[in-house]
């Protein structure tokens, strides 16, 4: 019940941010995100960022998956 995709923060103004992914841009709310920064990837659902994507953990997960025996 949670259709959401990772999008990159391009600009932040108070508790709103412009995010972008694959040529699609939108202004969303970041009011319940801790310290959002330009360049962060955030998970966007219903016009709000619900959490940050930890890109380091993402790469780690991918590595684990590729190395599964």
């Amino acid at each position, binding site marked *: 019940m949670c259709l959401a995709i990772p999008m990159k923060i391009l600009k932040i103004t108070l508790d709103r941010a412009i995010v972008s992914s*694959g040529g699609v841009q939108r202004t969303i709310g970041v009011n319940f995100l801790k310290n959002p920064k330009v360049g962060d990837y955030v998970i966007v659902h*219903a016009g709000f960022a619900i959490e940050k994507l930890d890109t380091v953990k993402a790469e780690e997960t991918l590595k684990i998956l590729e190395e599964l025996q």
Partner: protein
Amino acid sequence: MKTITLSHGSGGKLMQDLIKDLFLKNLGNPFLNKLGDAALLNLRTKKLAYTTDSFVVKPLFFPGGDIGKLSICGTVNDLAVSGATPRYLSCGIIVEDGFSYAMLEKITISIRDTCKSAGVNIVTGDFKVVEKGAIDGIFINTSGVGEILDNSEISVSRMTPGDKVIISGTIGEHAASILLAREDLKFKTGIKSDCSPLNKFVSYIICGDIKFMRDPTRGGLATTLNEISFASGYDIAIEESDIPVKKSVKTLCEILGFDPLYMANEGKLIAIVSKDAAANVLAKMKKHALGKSAEIIGEVKKEKDKKVYLKTQSGGLRTLDIITGEQLPRIC
């Protein structure tokens, strides 16, 4: 603001003036100018294709097109994918009492420009005005007659297992463009409808190796492939990773929970091509402006369950059914 009223449809002077100042001014040609009860035509061949379509799209204007452009492309393309050169079109327009004159003019000009681009003429037309509320704004019907091309051998019965399935370009843009224009979803995407006349593209690529064609309009690629599968009797299998989709359309679909396979296109065609000629047909398509992103996406199978299968991006398998109802943005 100048508006169309019931009087404009009643056959009197107002209507005569409208026909002269708006329709003949923009769409006039030797046939239409005669304003006969019927257009008297000369056709080069007895092998003809004939089609009709009605257009009720909302909103009337969207990035990449409008109802006028659509009404010409829809009919031209149905003739084109049937292997015919579109020659003569009819155009019937019904508007609601109170419709903006300026908007009707804009739509008519768009019809004019699209006819020019496709090299077709509207040879007969009809105009009616109905009471406010009887219809929503404007409805357009076009029909068209075309001459089957000499080197066209389009027939669903020619399809055989092993034939390749080619899509002439990226999918989903028309539906995405309409959705963004209709609902205020507040996304910036740059997505435009792909609405284009395909007849010149078809005459460029047509050859005996193209066994069948269809344009994937309402219901999208998946629904149209089902129609082809049903008509031919053969299963069709396609690969998700081969299907060309613009990045922005893909992303929007992920955000809203849409499936590009079920989204309408108005400037694309599916071609079923014999196996050995597929690479050459593809190469030729790619040389044309309307076929730059063409790809071979699958093939006709020998099984006869009339099913369409998709090998997914992640290596799984799923059946593609026809669309059921309108896709709407989801949260879930």
